[in-house]
């Protein structure tokens, strides 16, 4: 599903080139649950952003569902975002001025889904995450764990094939974190490919495969 070949990411300043990622080769197939770990500045988030097509590699080739992402245009990328990729962030990144319901609805609207269908999908999501009573609240009125649930609901509402999670438990206490991780595990069991970035060794173990990064390079890649 995902194939990264010789991916480099660097920033040029006047006299030197700072590497964030160096020669990353990575194959991820459908249905995997991958954890990326590593110290601060190792390039975890950059890698995730490249995979999520939010960032572009400086060099290298990236194939997503056999399509060369390094060659496709903005429009096609939007297509991918709409249909195949969902995101979760450490800071949740809900839209403050929209209600829970509307936040979950957002990707469906942009996908061009019909109103009636949209309603049933969002209702399903609310039901699944036990948030029916909270659907008219605004993000600021929810706890961190609840906000992350909304974010996950939003990320999977469009039935993506790939879910990218950038430290999804980073802002949560451990109970809430566990709850989120269980949820991700279930989602993976349902067939969604998940790539998560985390610092937490315990939560890392939810992944079936752990990739460790150091100084922009893969230092280990183990399947548990």
């Amino acid at each position, binding site marked *: 599903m995902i194939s990264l070949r010789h991916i480099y990411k660097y920033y040029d300043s006047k006299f030197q080139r700072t590497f964030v990622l160096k020669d990353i080769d990575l194959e991820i197939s459908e249905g995997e649950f991958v954890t990326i770990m590593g110290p601060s500045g190792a390039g975890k988030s950059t890698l995730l*952003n490249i995979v999520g097509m*939010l*960032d572009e590699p400086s060099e290298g080739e990236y194939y997503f569902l056999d399509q060369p992402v390094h060659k496709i245009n903005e*429009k096609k990328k*939007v297509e991918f*975002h*709409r249909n195949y990729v969902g*995101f979760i*962030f450490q*800071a949740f*990144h*809900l*839209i*403050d*001025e*929209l209600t829970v319901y*509307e936040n979950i609805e*957002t*990707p469906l609207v*942009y*996908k061009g889904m019909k109103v009636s269908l949209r309603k049933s999908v969002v209702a399903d999501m609310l039901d699944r995450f036990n948030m029916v009573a909270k659907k008219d609240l605004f993000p600021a009125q929810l706890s961190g764990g609840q906000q992350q649930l909304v974010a996950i609901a*939003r990320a999977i509402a*469009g039935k993506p094939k790939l879910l990218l999670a950038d430290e999804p438990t980073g802002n949560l206490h451990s109970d809430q974190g566990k709850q989120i991780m269980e949820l991700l595990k279930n989602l993976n069991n349902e067939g969604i490919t998940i790539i998560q970035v985390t610092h937490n060794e315990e939560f890392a173990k939810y992944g079936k495969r752990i990739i460790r990064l150091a100084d922009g390079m893969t230092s280990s890649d183990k399947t548990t």
Partner: protein
Amino acid sequence: MKLLRRVKQNWQWFLINLTGLSLAVACSIVVLLYTLQQLSFDRFHSRSEDICRITMNTNRGATSMHPARVYGDQPGKFLSEYPAIERMTRLVPFRNAIVKIGDQKFYSRNAFLTDSSFFRVFDFKVISGNSEKAFSRPGQVFISRSLAIKYFGSIDVVGKEISILHQQEPTFKVFTIDGVMEDFPLNSHFHADLLTSFTSDDDLTTWAYTYFLLKKGTDLDALRGTLQQKLETDFKATGSVPTVFLQKLTDLHLFSHKTREIENNGDIRSIILLITGAFIILCIAFINFFNLSRVQFISRIKSIKVKLINGATRTIVAGEIALESLILSIFSISVGLFISISLSWHLSFPIFHPDKIFLIALMSFIFTFFIVLLSVLPLFTSKIISDIKVSSHKNKLYVFPLLVQFSLAVAAIACTIVLNRQMDFIFKQHPASQDENMIVIADNPRDPVERYEVFKNELLKSTSITGVTAAMEDPGSDIIDAVDFEMEGIQKKEGQSINIFTTDSNFFSLLGIRPIAGTTELGYTPSQKWESDAIELSQLRETKNADKQKLADLEKRVGGYREKYILNQSALRMLGIFNPQEAIGKRFRLNFFLPDLFPEGEIVGVVPDFHYTNLHSEEKPLAIAPRKLFNYCFMISINPTQRGNAIATIASVWQKINPEFPLQYEFITDTYRKVYAGEYAQTRVLSLFALISIILSALGIFAMAAFSMQHRVKEIGIRKVNGAEVFEILTLLNKDLVKWISIAFLVATPAGYYVMHKWLQNFAYKTELSWWIFALAGIIALCIALLTVSWMSWRAATRNPVEALRYE
């Protein structure tokens, strides 16, 4: 729904934008329609492009005049000699005429004698009567629809009679109504209510507004050149050749500012000022909108990015923003239209015509387009958004728009100060302009003028009246009559004349004008009886075989009086006398066509240029003599403790002495104000515009300050935790502002100076453009800005830093 919520959440932004934009819309619409109305003057005639008015400058040095009317048969000669002139029509005003219909009497300034060609030059609509044969025989009159309705109650009035008394003639003339005209359109430079045929041959050569209808395609300049050449040969003998001018009909309203215009004209300069004002307000409102939408954009960057990650395209996001600004702009246009319509309704100024709907719609469309464009501009120009990752970012505000805005506001304040100062200055130059107890009975008919002495004596019997005087012209009008003169010790230049001004002998003391040499206390001055004797004597001298006995009798009665002349400073300047004392006691005489009316005498006093007349033009050199028969304007000083009583006295005395004439009076303050009505209106409107622009700028800066505070809460918190005092933080926050406003001040000063310098050129007498005006304007702007920002920053700076830092 979501949209409504956004508006509700951001109601402050929405309200600030709505205020600014709707005011800008209202100002723009009013100014635009007003400008169109002003530009449309006199264009409704089918051949308006071929009509011109002829005027002449007398070219007589200091006493030169260039009135809107012409005198004599010269235009008639031009008509018969030059085929390029197809037709000519003249309008001889009855001046402040008295119209008598049945037993109703009223004053009208809109009565004219005219030629039979009138309706063939101008295309005024005739409702009844034959316009082809109009004014072809004596005694015919056409009246306007509103006059007919008002005094006859119907427009079916042909055949009825009307009597009209020319202001300066002794008897009414009777006319038969020959037709009814539709009221002249508002955008005509004159509005005749009564048009009559000529009654005597004298009418054909007297002062008349004279219009030529030219052959199509006639070159106006070439024709003028030819006419001028003709004048050169005709006037060679007389010494001073007048200059002829041909003014296009369509230029009269906005570009003609001659003495004795047929009606008060508009002024292209005031239109340019208005357009500038509206443009400034529009700019400020747009800048506010631009700044605010940028600020809103910045605070929205996060949600925009999240939307993009969730599959929105930039076009979709732009659409959402555009929809909001579309709603804002529709609201603004509606409110603006409402304001402008109610304004024009309130001022009873009909600028809204059905045929302007398309234009208004077009302007609204353009306005909306720009608003939408400005609102989405940040989305497409911002670099922040091209980096799609959701991350923290620094953002700088645009300083430049604020700078422009404040420059405009400073310039507007400065201009308003100058405008108001100049009007105040002008007003105070006029004698007795602030005297609340001076009543003016202006533009009297001939009969009341002849009964002046009786009127005066009768009034003075009442203790409520403290003084009565009279003068040849109304306060604030023009003195244009000039005559030849002789003065001891003065070698006159050829053709040199002096303007003549007659007053009652107490004129100067009553108006509080002090002589700079000699005296204005004249002692004995001749009575009106003496004046009529003097006229009779002069006329008798001209007649052959005059009654010797009568002649001797009259000479005995009239002779023996030596005239007491007073000169003004301009007259001394013209004569080259620098020390006023030198003029006192010099022999002087006005060579009037009735020689006995202004006998030889001495100069007894010199007065300063006392600015009784209109200050648009320079003071004329005046020879002032105590005569009463030309004094068409009466002035009555009343006892301030008995005002009501005084007015009742004036009314009853008038009724007793002049029962056949209605009394029309006003306070001298109003008389002067009327002269500058245009300027006052201009000043008021522009002051309003300046106020609006200041308020809008303040709103703008308020919003920006609110935004930047929001984003600096953390910084302020950290500074406070590290020991900064409130004052230091205030200084920090206000430092930039002072810098911007200083720069704005530097930009605005020369611009404002230039504009006001131009405007002041309308006046012969002007205030100084002192530096402090601009400094004051800068300080006002600075104060407003500092107050606004300080209020915001005070709130931020006095907050508990813990609160600010809690969430980070």
